């Protein structure tokens, strides 16, 4: 064991999805061998309450060391939106008000009960924002606190997914989870546009159609030849259009490379 491994604590990376809880241990940014696990969740309605209950149950049963947690959430429970620049984003309280107004305009008044966060994009640039049910966020924090664990980060899976492939600088990427697919374009290290929709078990054709439909709305996508593909669905597709180039992913929890340093 190297010195840096001796002085750094491991982090338990968890990915909470409607139909499973994925986990892996990381120390100094690297996954520990044979530490990955997967806990299936029977959740026909894909509700976060059931998944959260499974997380609580797993934390209760886990009698190991109380390692800090880095949690990623499935895109199904995360509403994404590109919000225009506003000076209100410079202040934390006014930023929440501004984000709530933007989300309410798209997702309705139900978004008033969400907890919202936005990317730290440069001044004057549109920002990627995400909202989740405030009760879900509080539930994850309470579950961790109830078992004496510290939460280092809670974020939507698209964040770790992008950061895990950002070094290759793809112009666009697709993230496919069970029942959900997400398309994003990138530039300057940031996600610049995003499209999210539900999908079925045979998502290969839906992915291509989603890309084409998005292309009709955003003509700048014409210039993008290749789209990096991260498949977390557990349902690999045999024939995918050549535009999509699959990248090897061991599991959702393995994407959280930076969580150990948070």
């Amino acid at each position: 064991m190297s010195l840096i491994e001796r002085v750094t604590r491991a982090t338990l990376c968890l990915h909470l999805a409607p139909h499973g809880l994925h986990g892996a241990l990381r120390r100094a940014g690297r996954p520990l061998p044979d530490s990955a696990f997967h806990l299936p969740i029977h959740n026909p309605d894909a509700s976060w309450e059931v998944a959260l209950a499974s997380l609580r149950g797993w934390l209760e049963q886990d009698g190991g060391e109380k390692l800090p947690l880095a949690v990623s959430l499935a895109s199904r429970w995360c509403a994404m939106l590109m919000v225009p620049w506003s000076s209100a984003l410079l202040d934390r309280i006014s930023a929440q008000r501004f984000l709530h107004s933007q989300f309410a305009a798209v997702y309705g008044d139900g978004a008033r009960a969400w907890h919202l966060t936005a990317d730290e994009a440069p001044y004057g640039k549109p920002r990627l924002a995400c909202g989740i049910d405030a009760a879900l966020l509080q539930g994850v924090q309470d579950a961790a606190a109830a078992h004496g664990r510290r939460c280092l980060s809670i974020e939507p899976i698209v964040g770790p997914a992008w950061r895990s492939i950002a070094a290759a600088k793809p112009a666009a990427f697709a993230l496919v989870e069970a029942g959900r697919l997400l398309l994003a374009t990138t530039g300057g290290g940031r996600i610049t546009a995003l499209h999210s929709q539900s999908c079925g078990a045979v998502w290969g054709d839906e992915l291509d159609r989603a890309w084409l439909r998005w292309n009709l709305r955003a003509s700048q996508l014409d210039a993008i030849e290749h789209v990096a593909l991260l498949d977390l669905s557990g349902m690999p597709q045999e024939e995918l259009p050549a535009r999509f180039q699959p990248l090897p992913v061991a599991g959702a929890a393995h994407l959280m490379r930076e969580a150990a340093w948070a």
Partner: protein
Amino acid sequence: MGLSRLEFLAPGAVQTFKGWRLALCLASGLLLLPAAVYWLVQTQETRRLEAQLAQLQPARPVRAPLSASQQRERDLELKQVAAAVRQLNLPVTRLVRTVQPPRDVRVALLGLDLNAQQGQDGASVLKIAAEAETPQDMLNYLAFLNQQPMFSSVYLLKHEMNANAPEHAYRFQLEAQWRQ
């Protein structure tokens, strides 16, 4: 430029300064503590030495301002002192040596007046009284003095023939402006 990050947990101060971060801050503070103490001691010592230095400086006497009449008296005294100093500093020997006529110029010096007023350009004035047997000797002497580098200008003030003298000698006065 940083990568996109959507973090729901606000990075609070409590979370930031926990664990190894807190330990690192404390260790840094402990490391800097001796330096801070040393700096404080040095500052106090410097202040103490500066205060001592200020006490050792000789106190400058404060003079009361003079009244107008006193100031006039003071100016007068200063002028007199300056005149006395100027007199004491006159190069008398050099002047006497310079005005000595050469052998071929038969002129007898009768008197030198060094107390004449200064000229407008600050040059001092020397008045010379002399006697010559012939007008030619008088003019030769005038030309001789004009050639001396010590004199800037020499001119004849007056001349007269002494009818009482047996050989009717010429008496004349010259004024020479000189610089040191």
